[in-house]
């Protein structure tokens, strides 16, 4: 399990032990540092919180999110595990049943499927059948756009949204990521927290320092206001949508960008409110087109906002094929800014 990206993707960020010490001089944090800050604060706040995963201790995690945690919190709370994903999930479940609050890291969210049964059968169904709360967080880097090919680029959110019983969170900005990881750790239900690896070190912003700063789960956010068309999306595609919206504005088209932030359970209200305003919907996802998250968003809009629509709901998403490696192939596979603009143009023609 080697990090296949350029050194900037997986290399150490380190400027001292605490994540907060890794902010830029003017106080900005990357998405990666913001997540690390959130985890660090929750570990400090609540002794029941502990982390387990492969190479998270001495090595600091495949992407260095947990760098410095071992020194601060010790091996009992920052636990390097055997390469055994089913048991990583099982241990999280069992320790949560006994009152601990585990946060399990997957080196890549691709490897969550190595623990599929413990996630989809056990983790998702314990509470419904027994009333036992499972405050478990499973987290890991997801998504492509970094030439990581088939086994290090997956978007697993549709698989685990389907399981029922797991909240699936896919933030796009550092502040949202920090506020949502903290909410996930404090939530009494199983949460899956998917960190888009393209965003890790590319997007930075001022991030709240209040240790009780939280972003609610299942709450979408309008990242750019607009009147003509709604682009409903999440994860790294939010950034492509914002880039496209900027270019559309120059063409006189006002696009609203809705960031779902949590894909399951979904904040339908914010999505529908946007459609009521714009009457046109482009559903943009990095998860596959067929049975992807976008299919649910599009169906929800078609069912519940039909009377507001001036055009058919359009989905823009990759085909259901493995993520290819070669740069021209991956670029063609992923929705591009040009693709987004072209789809918006078609929607605007109605």
């Amino acid at each position, binding site marked *: 399990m080697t990090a296949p990206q350029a050194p900037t993707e997986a290399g150490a960020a380190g400027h001292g032990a605490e994540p907060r010490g890794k902010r830029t001089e003017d106080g900005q944090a990357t998405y990666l540092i913001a997540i690390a800050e959130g985890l660090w604060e929750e570990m400090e706040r609540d002794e029941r919180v502990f982390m387990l995963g492969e190479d998270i201790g001495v090595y600091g995690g495949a992407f260095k999110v947990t760098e410095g945690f071992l020194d601060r919190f010790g091996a009992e709370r920052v636990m390097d595990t055997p390469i055994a994903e089913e048991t990583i999930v*099982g241990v999280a479940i069992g*320790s949560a049943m006994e009152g601990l609050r585990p946060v399990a890291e997957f080196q890549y969210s691709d490897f969550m499927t190595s623990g599929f049964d413990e996630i989809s059968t056990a983790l998702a169904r314990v509470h419904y059948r027994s009333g036992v709360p499972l405050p478990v967080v499973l987290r890991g880097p997801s998504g492509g756009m970094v030439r990581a090919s088939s086994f290090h680029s997956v978007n697993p959110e549709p698989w685990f949204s389907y399981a029922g019983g797991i909240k699936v969170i896919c933030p796009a900005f550092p502040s949202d990521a920090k506020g949502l990881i903290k909410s996930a750790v404090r939530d009494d239900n199983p949460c899956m927290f998917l960190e888009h690896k393209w965003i890790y070190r590319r997007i930075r912003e001022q991030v709240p320092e209040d240790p009780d700063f939280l972003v609610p789960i299942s709450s979408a956010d309008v990242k750019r206001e607009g009147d003509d068309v709604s682009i409903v999306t999440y994860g790294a595609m939010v950034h492509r949508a914002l880039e496209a919206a900027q270019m559309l504005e120059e063409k006189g088209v006002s696009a609203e960008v809705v960031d779902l932030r949590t894909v399951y359970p979904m904040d339908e209200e914010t999505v529908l409110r946007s459609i009521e305003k714009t009457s046109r919907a482009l559903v943009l996802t990095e998860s596959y087109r067929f049975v992807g998250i976008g299919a649910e968003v599009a169906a929800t809009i078609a069912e519940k906002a039909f009377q507001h629509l001036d055009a058919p709901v359009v989905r823009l998403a990759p085909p259901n094929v493995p993520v290819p490696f070669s740069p021209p192939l991956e670029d063609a596979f992923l929705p591009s800014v040009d693709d987004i603009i072209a789809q918006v143009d078609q929607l605007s023609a109605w």
Partner: protein
Amino acid sequence: MATTKTRGSDRPQAEVTPSPDERRHILYLLKLCRYFDERVDTLYRQGKLPGAIYSGRGQEGTHVGVVLPLGPEDSLFPTHRDLSAQLAKGLDLKRVMAQYWGRIDGYTRGRDGNSHIGDWFGSKTWTVMSHLPIAYPVACGAALAYQRRGEPHVALAICGDGATSNGRWHEALNWSAVGRLPVVWVVNNNQYAYSTPNPLEFAVPTIAERAAAYGMPGVRVDGSDVLEVEAAAREAVDRARAGEGPTLIESVSLRWMGHAGHDPAKYVPKELLEEFKEHKDPVKNFERRLLEDGTVSEDDVKEIQARIEREFDEGYEYAQASPFPEPGDHAKGLWVEDGYWTSEPGRGGPTEYS
């Protein structure tokens, strides 16, 4: 450390012999499990019981024996075959039967049926799932919590011979040995995984000897002898409590009935079945032993049996009188915050979350 041994009749009895009162209680448990299994089978065949049944008949020595050394704070992670172990751990027969009939007072409030049951908030048992051995990794997690908090508790997990072929079995044993976790691994080797016999599941002569490969002791016991099973389990539980790590126990028996109620199990050779019923009946053997050594009289046995039948009938009546769940509640209870499981304390859930 990594030794494999077979517990035979040469074991000094004095080491572990339970008191006469404890022996009478063991007999009660064995006979209760057998009677429940037989009555439920009859009701199923009469069409009076919805869903499926998974008989543990012939394996009561294993089920009761491994649970005896556990205290109320120790956790049990059984399979659908192991209702007897859950009864021995303390499940209430009334609520068990409410579960079988899909009623609100069942431990899962009708969300699951039959032996897919558990009582985490009371008897500390896992609510059984079918994908075996899905609870083996979970037992590691419970044990990790005990270890971390310095609590003297133990997690005991049971699976069958078939589940030892699954990757999780190996993951969990390996992890528990690496972490020196307070776990006891029990394999109820009833010789058949549905229709598949041992030689098609593994190529080693015994499951117990696999323990050496993980760095833990392995022991093979005769599942028809409840006291032999109990002694091995007690030693393993004591080791775990003392911080000496996990033990693997293979308890050998035979599955007398089919995989589930619909399965006549014609693939089990008649002679083998007859041999086990005649010579390896854990209930009959123990009863005979207690009669012979004077621990119980024939009248005592009759009294125990009468008590069991009364309890079963009371449980049956309770289950029939318990309401079905509200159909409109089928989507409730998924998330903690919807409050479903704390809405009616005493009906399966906790009174409040800690």
